[in-house]
């Protein structure tokens, strides 16, 4: 066991892990942050997406020890300070961008990375960005709408719900 320390959602945390402990295991089992999910074992589904030092990565495909000293952000850290839903989260609720909710944390984290790089994505941009996020429930239609709407809100525009 080796000690690992990092910042998760703004809080300094540490724990003992094995070399083979993945970041997602450290988050879920070590820190009890079960919002980050595991949907595959081939690094393809994106249910596990979190941010490490501001970039979206698959928490199932990075070791906890590789995140020593890193800033990690998970779905649990996406709400506003007062606990209300952040802009992307609120857009997902408003536009029905989730059904079973299993892919959702990864979708939100992935979308947040996109919107930090591209304030004005086209529908194509959004769809291509979601290459690594699989959803079986929504057919993506409302996920795409949610992300486009969140982008508009972040740009200061008003959008209708339907």
């Amino acid at each position, binding site marked *: 066991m080796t000690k690992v320390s990092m910042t998760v959602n703004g809080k300094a945390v540490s724990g003992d892990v094995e070399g*083979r402990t993945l970041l997602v295991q450290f988050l*879920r*089992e070590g820190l009890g*942050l*079960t*919002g*980050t*999910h*595991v*949907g*595959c*074992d*081939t690094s*393809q*589904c994106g*249910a596990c997406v979190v941010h490490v030092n501001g970039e979206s990565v698959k928490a199932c495909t990075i070791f906890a020890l590789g995140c020593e000293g890193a800033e990690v952000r*998970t*779905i*649990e850290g*996406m*709400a506003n300070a007062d606990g209300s*839903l952040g802009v992307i*989260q609120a857009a*997902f*609720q*408003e536009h*029905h961008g*989730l*059904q*079973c*909710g*299993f*892919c*959702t*944390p990864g979708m*939100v984290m992935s979308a947040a990375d996109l919107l930090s790089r591209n304030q004005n994505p086209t*529908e*194509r941009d*959004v*769809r*291509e960005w*979601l*290459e690594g*996020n*699989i*959803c*079986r*429930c*929504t*057919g*993506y*239609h*409302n*996920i*795409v709408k949610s992300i486009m709407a969140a982008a508009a809100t972040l740009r200061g525009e008003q959008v209708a*719900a*339907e």
Partner: protein
Amino acid sequence: MPKDHGIGASSKRREDVRFLTGKGQYTDDINRPGQAFCYFLRSNVAHGTITSLDVSAARDAKGVVGVFTSKDLEGLGGIPCGWEVTDKDGAPMKEPKHPILAEGKVRHVGDPIVAIIADSLAAGRDAAELVELEIDELPAVVDMREAIKGGTVLHDVAPDNICYDWEFVAENKAAVDEAIRNAHHVTTLELVNNRLVPNAMEPRAAVGEYDAGRDEYTLWTTSQNPHVIRLLMGAFVLSIPEHKLRVVAPDVGGGFGSKIYHYAEEAFITWVSKRVGRPVKWNADRSEAFMSDAHGRDHVTKVELAMDQEGNFLALRSSTLANMGAYLSTFAPCIPTWLHGTLLAGNYKTPLIFTNVKAVFTNTVPVDAYRGAGRPEATYQLERTIDKAAREMGIDPVELRRRNFVKPDQYPYQTPVAVIYDTGNYDATLDKALELADVRGFAERKADSAARGKLRGLGIANYIEACGIAPSSLVGALGARAGLYEAATVRVNPTGNVSVFTGSHSHGQGHETTFAQVVADMLGCEEANVDIVHGDTSRIPFGMGTYGSRSLAVGGSAIVKSVEKIITKAKKIAAHLLEASEADITFANGQFTVAGTDKAIDWGSVALTAYVPHKYPIDDVEPGLEETSFYDPANFTYPAGTYVCEVEVDPDTGVVEVQSFVAADDFGNVVNPMIVEGQVHGGLAQGIGQAILEGCSYDENGQLLSASYMDYAMPRAADLPMFVVDHSCNTPCTHNPLGVKGCGEAGAIGSPPAIVNAVIDALSAHGVTHIDMPLTPRRVWEAIRAARN
């Protein structure tokens, strides 16, 4: 003006808040103190005899709590099948035992052989490598056409690998044969309905715990129907009485059918938690899911459609081989029979129909219901065959369909395949879809595609499905070993807020919101004052669960019945408080009023009085305000609709791109349009996935080739267009109180034939008449090449 709350409003989903903040509680998120982990060692060969199995080294390995094989499970039952289909000659289907862990023989890749309980999953996996296992490999049989020749036999009880040989409607056989013999034209099509892997994004999981002090078991499991699991597992497998067994299906990350069934793993986890005296968790990884979740579809069918000169359908004959896989999954036998044969009339008035279905055992994962279940197979063969017929007869495919529609004045319509459609209007959805798809502008778009070297095609498909499953007496007569009603308790708490306990289960469908809308509408209260509780056998009276688009039609109706009883009782209390006759009390907008007076009392006061019965009609009614109902539907519901899509094919590579997709559905009344549209979107993605991307494939040795997302193509965002969905042409269901029909499966049923018809339309100029799904680039390119040569 759209409504802003209650029935008809697109209320935002309350469950979203927990899912969006990482506070959902899925089975794998549940951890019990002292919990151990289970790892299943599974067969890596498709068929073989276990010649030696030594687990002693594994038992001694570090961190191992226990190692179990079928020898340790003596006395336990096998995994039961919930539906018995009768052979054409009256014999019951062949029903081989489905052991929890392999007994002497393995029959598919993924068949569990050894279960290891350890302090950590890693320790369990490490120990699995110490198991000394020898399997004498037998030839495997994967192709159904080979399997029915016998030779390689999976189960001694079925020497020709045939589970049943079913005919429906047997009395029509001679007449159908004759009509086909004498018809002006017969269109024949042989097709494959490809095997699919459901792939709910949450893999299956189970946590078992035994409380020795109370002699009680709890199982948390990824299920669409926890009561069904309690019943099947308690009564047939583990012999645990219901009152000692609690089954909880917490937040569940999608099901699509695959989480209906009772699986060996959850039974084992429950049993072993007592045996090792510790809570035990099992969580499938995706690779395990591919080889152990029940698969869907997998039919090989030949269809013949007889027509007169005008294209009027005279008779339909179809014969199908339906794959059961290696064992019978819970509802497997009824899918290719009662959920398939009864839908072969489709939206049409074909007077004579006969089908023969042989269910076949093969060395593959068991096959059972997957979104649509039987109805997509029926729709696909009909709508593909009609398209081919239209081409052969030189009749416009829209016109041919319209000519044969059941017309609005023909309801209730008795089909020749047992079911009676209560209501519908197929012309309306057809017109709507054609309008929304701007079919008039197609020629121009086709020319534009051609200018870019692409072939554009237009595809259309109608569908009808039987949902709201199902009248118990009817399904009982057809072989179901359970009733298919639903239960609900509505509890009005003393301060007037409401807890609803439903036997339906939400794993994405949004019941917590939709059901609250219904109750709030009836009681004239805020939706926020209504809580929906589901998924726990210790809290809910009973339930048959969620599948077959039944939740609102059956589960919702049970809730309505309970609310009606509540209102009746509350009126009695109000009458007493208002000193009026019960007959004079009206209830609206949360107020009880005495007709013709200004005397009124609000809902909260009546609720409180029910629990503080100081001034109370105690001789007439009991205190408290809680009612339970069981609703058993009078008929199926029959959602129907028309789907129109356009595709572009790249003739150089075979790539199919879906350019547009329009769905016009008749779901009867709609409670939450936003959620209904979301259900359609999801179904469409799965249906389009089936049509162009997804195919589960085995090699001839029974090795699963599409064993992960590296080879099983899941639809991604970039594969799909924005959808146009409409549900304005609705004919309310005539026999349930909400007039609803169900919307969960439609998208997956109507879209595969629409897509394939569009691709064939695009390629027809090249002489291509059919391609089996999935229409992958390779297959499309090969078809073009073959037609050219």
